[in-house]
């Protein structure tokens, strides 16, 4: 947005400005940043229950809420942490497009998302989570 404010100046013709805003509108917000990763799956992973609700603000500006009582199945391990898959609910991350997402937890904090369709990791500002077995 700051970049947009810099390039808009009074000397610009309205039609050009309109095109610029139109392009910005079509591009929408930023893509979800992610990097390839490899998950080592766990067969029949046990299930955990989230003890309290957690609200997240994604880097793209979208918000997500992990509900209290939501259940998560241990799905595997990536270099960034342990992957927990939503059980009987869904989680997505959203930017210019939407991606199915599983959470990645390390040392009791959510540190990002595993995007199973992309086989990729998307980092997130760490947020403390508490689970009960």
């Amino acid at each position: 947005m700051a970049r947009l404010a810099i390039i808009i100046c009074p000397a610009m013709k309205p039609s050009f400005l309109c095109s610029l805003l139109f392009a910005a509108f079509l591009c929408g917000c930023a893509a979800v940043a992610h990097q390839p990763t490899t998950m080592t799956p766990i067969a029949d992973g046990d299930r955990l229950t989230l003890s309290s609700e957690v609200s997240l603000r994604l880097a793209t500006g979208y918000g997500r809420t992990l509900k209290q009582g939501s259940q998560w199945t241990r799905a595997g391990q990536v270099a960034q942490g342990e992957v927990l898959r939503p059980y009987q609910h869904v989680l997505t991350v959203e930017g210019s497009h939407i991606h199915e997402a599983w959470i990645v937890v390390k040392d009791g904090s959510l540190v990002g998302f595993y995007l199973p369709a992309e086989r990729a990791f998307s980092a997130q500002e760490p947020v403390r989570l508490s689970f009960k077995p």
Partner: protein
Amino acid sequence: MKFVSLAVIAAAAVLTGCAATGPKFAQQESVMPKLAAEQGRVYFYRVDSMLGAAVRPPVKMDGAAVGDSVPGGYFFVDAAAGNHEAATSTEATNKLTFVLDKGETKYVRTKVQMGFMAGHVIPELVSADEAQKELPSLSFTGAPKAN
């Protein structure tokens, strides 16, 4: 005053004409084909709303058109287990990526958001609980399939 009333009636007629017609979910479920062993099923649906009712773009899955996003309509696609991408395009293309397991059912709701010149239709993944509350009032818009 008469003109305003006439305009309202005409608008209502146009908008209601946009809603999907076809067998309701419960009726269609009784004749649904069995899922093949190596496949999963994806339901695509859109709740009935006047917002953007005239905007009904094709829904593509992995690049192939599989149906249309129609207010009040739903259809399903049986697909191989693995990674998939659903997309809808109006003035912009919106995509959803997800994985489908063998025997799994996933639900993708398309919803209209305001756009610059035309509404944007966004495919979003929803839980089975949420979808099963919304699907019963919708009409099947897919082609009849036999397995």
